[in-house]
């Protein structure tokens, strides 16, 4: 246990401190959906799909001047070591709420009054950073569905491991005794932070450095998101 995880700025999986895990994104993976995306963020795997704009059900939830977002975040039962029982859990409710708020102002909801846009994010394999992988996927799925947005939302966590400020922690790194984890979602084009959570014990200085590092990460991710959308577009028109 006294062995260090990070030596000379190189992490257990060979990454540099400010490097994200290998990120694969594929748009258009669910045939029935209006838009969808599959994301592998390291070994974390997520599928997200978007339906809508469509009618609101039940009707009384309808808003006269804009679309409502209905967001679900769910871990499938065998995505984790200790099987997750299907059904309601508070962690998923909270994540769905903060993801919904991270996307709300970025989508031009006012273009679709009295409508609903449904976003489903399903975690297939949960290793670390499930919520940031889920938002990254949802954002691509929204674009794939042709929903007009002010830009792509990108998402990544940064944090502290053995005193180092690092980008995109693995599960192993999250278990370091001094670890803190700060997931962020960002309109990468403008740097506007639309999701931010944090657990741990950090000084304001550290928080600042960590948040700045997520900025770099989100810009890297945005490029890969954009590429995935272009690939999908090219495949469709080929």
């Amino acid at each position, binding site marked *: 246990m006294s062995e260090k995880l990070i030596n000379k700025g190189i992490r257990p999986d060979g990454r540099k401190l400010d490097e994200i895990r290998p990120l694969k994104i594929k748009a258009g993976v669910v045939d029935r*959906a209006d838009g969808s995306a599959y994301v592998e963020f390291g070994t974390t795997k997520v599928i997200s799909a978007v*339906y809508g704009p469509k009618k609101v059900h039940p009707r009384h939830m309808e808003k006269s001047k804009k679309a409502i977002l209905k967001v679900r975040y769910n871990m499938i*039962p*065998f995505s984790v070591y200790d099987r997750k029982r*299907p059904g309601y859990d508070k962690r998923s409710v909270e994540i769905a709420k903060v993801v919904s708020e991270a996307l709300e102002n970025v989508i031009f909801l006012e273009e679709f009054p009295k409508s609903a846009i449904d976003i489903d994010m399903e975690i297939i394999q949960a290793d670390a950073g499930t919520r940031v992988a889920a938002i990254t996927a949802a954002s691509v799925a929204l674009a794939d569905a042709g929903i007009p947005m002010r830009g792509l939302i990108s998402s990544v966590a940064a944090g502290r491991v053995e005193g180092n400020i690092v980008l995109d922690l693995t599960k192993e790194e999250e278990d370091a005794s001094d670890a803190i984890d700060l997931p962020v979602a960002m309109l990468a084009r403008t740097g506007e932070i639309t999701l931010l959570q944090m657990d741990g014990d950090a000084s304001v200085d550290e928080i600042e450095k960590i948040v700045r590092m997520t900025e770099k990460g989100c810009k890297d991710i945005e490029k890969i998101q954009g590429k995935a959308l272009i690939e999908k577009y090219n495949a469709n028109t080929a």
Partner: protein
Amino acid sequence: MTAKLTKDYIVNQIKRNIRGDDRKLDEMREVIIERGVSANAEGSARVKLGKTEVIAGIKMDLAEPYPDSQDRGVLTSSAEFLPLAAPEFEAGRPGEVEVELGRVVDRGIREAEVIDFKKLCIVEGEKVWRVFMDIVVINHDGNLMDASGLAAMTAILDAKMPTIDKDYKIDYNKREKPLPLTTIALPITVMKCGNKLIIDTTADEEEAIDTRLTVTTNESGNISSMQKGGPGGFTVEEVVEICKIAGKKTDELIKKHFKSKKK
């Protein structure tokens, strides 16, 4: 999904042995089977039947045996239509269609004794392995029953049991032996349209025709489970013919995709 055809048109075409995707009535869509979709599961599989896509996973832990089978492991199953799989699917307590799907796949595996549950007993009457078999539907383009059965069976074949130490603490990072199996069993669903029988229906076809019989057959050609669904009826002769079709198709699938587990 193909453009929406009218129900009547689909029915009339089937009566003339014609399907929207040019298949024969007894022809399956392309079957793609992929193992190991979630490394945190003991076993998992993704199955595509044309555009239908289902994944299944096996998780294991320790539990008490049931009072009436003290020396046998336990199987617990669920099936969920993820909301992302079709516009009509919603989150919430599983509806009757999901419940039926999960139970029919479960019974096919259980009654065929695919898993040798006696070998999953650790301390009789006290501690046995519990096997969770969970099915999630990723894209719904018809025939969820057969896709789910195929995914579940593949996940079982893919599974490696975690190890336990002397205090019965489970180590999920050290998975060694495969699950003890005795056979392979798969469901085949045959639908009825007039006097025609048709397999591996798409979502469009299932909008037009809805009476079906699902038959699970094992490697020896024996049937372990049957389930009729939908409002219509069958004659005895049709039931027998469907059993034969199911046996033949199961045999083809097993030969093409699996190694025998027969003992």
